[in-house]
């Protein structure tokens, strides 16, 4: 059932595709970090309608599947607008938008944990709105939530196989292609599964280490 020599033969190809997986996940996470921050800041806007719009967007993106969002971005966007992206760019955009809404909640929890007095002090010192955000609030709000953001990096890594639906050749699609050439299915899928398992276990070990470091620094 398990053929070691065959497994060794297909491993390099799968590892190469795994690099694509990691690349897409990291780029998507990077975008999500930015989008999440923008959403979190606008969700505290002074204007009610802006807050309402941001909340609705977040709610909508969070309650629809990433797969369908990817299809929409990849197949409909070029028909509605003159824009058209490669599979990789669409995948990164999809991951960034989807998990940006999740990360905005993470930022929110960090921002709400900053004492009210900090906002008032910034106002008393006559700091501008921008200065208040970037010099006072965010430097205090973000570091404590970094481990939580790390957890979402793990989630994103595990979601990247979904990008195979829009023809991005990552590990799962590469395993599928390998299997369709040789008709041997067990090894490629098992290796793909183990690769994900190892990566997410390593990452979650890293996150829990970071959690400990953060706890020592901010609660001690």
């Amino acid at each position, binding site marked *: *059932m398990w053929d070691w020599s065959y497994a060794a033969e297909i491993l390099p190809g799968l590892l190469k595709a795994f690099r694509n997986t990691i690349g897409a996940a990291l780029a998507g996470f990077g975008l999500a970090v930015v989008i999440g921050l923008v959403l979190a800041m606008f969700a505290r806007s002074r204007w009610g309608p802006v807050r309402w719009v941001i909340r609705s967007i977040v709610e*909508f993106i*969070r*309650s*629809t*599947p*990433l*797969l*369908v*969002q990817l*299809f*929409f971005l990849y*197949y*409909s966007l070029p*028909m*509605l607008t003159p824009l058209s992206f490669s599979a990789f760019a669409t995948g990164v955009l999809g991951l960034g938008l989807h998990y940006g809404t999740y990360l905005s909640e993470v930022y929110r929890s960090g921002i709400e944990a900053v004492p009210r007095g900090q906002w008032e002090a910034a106002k008393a010192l006559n700091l501008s709105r921008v200065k208040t955000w970037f010099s006072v609030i965010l430097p205090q709000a973000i570091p404590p939530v970094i481990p939580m953001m790390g957890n979402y990096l793990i989630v994103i*890594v*595990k*979601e*990247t*196989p*979904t990008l*195979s*639906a829009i023809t991005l050749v990552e590990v*799962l699609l590469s*395993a*599928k292609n390998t*299997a369709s050439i040789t008709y*041997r*299915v*067990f090894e490629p*899928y*098992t290796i*793909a*599964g183990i690769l*994900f*398992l190892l990566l*997410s*276990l390593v990452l*979650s070990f890293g996150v829990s280490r970071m959690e400990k470091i953060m706890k020592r620094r901010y609660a001690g």
Partner: protein
Amino acid sequence: MFARGAGVTLKVALLSAGVALLMSLLAGLGSGSRFAFVRAICRLYIQLFRAVSLLVLLFWMYFALPFAGIELSKLLSAVLAIGLNIGAYGAEIVRGSVAAVPKGQYEASIVLNLSQSQRLWRVVFPQAFVRMLPPMGNLMIELLKATSLIYFITLADLTYEAMILRNNYYIWTPYIFGMLLGIYFLLAACITMAIRILERKFTAWR
């Protein structure tokens, strides 16, 4: 087309929600067990199934397992993969909610000479249950979203039907996907609403 697809999506969602809730209850309560062996098994299950990628797990169960002599139907592999994966997350919710019940409640039930099962089902669980509801609601929305992945193993769910529609009416692609997003949003809204009603019902005594 959409109605038929919605039927399949709902069927898979309900069945896998059943599996997920059962697993989260078993593994969540089991990871607080007195027996080290039971605890270890539950921890292993939670760690393992939280660490795998759901789509890879689904592929593995449907395409690879037959080579190991275990043949699962499309529906069964979908329900098992989604249920086991989401169940591992649910187990963490159950464990956390049970752990959040104040220690005094345990001590009080010992003082009142309640049996083990009475303590769990009459005192601890009802309080933990209320705490579980909001995160469980979010998890059920994740589960609903996860059912879209069964499109990959060609189960004719909402997403699959939409792709077929799209092949036939290519120029309507944006509307088809827009509608699909709308349907998932409505289904998710139903879950949110149901959880809210449950929450109101179970916190009425407060």
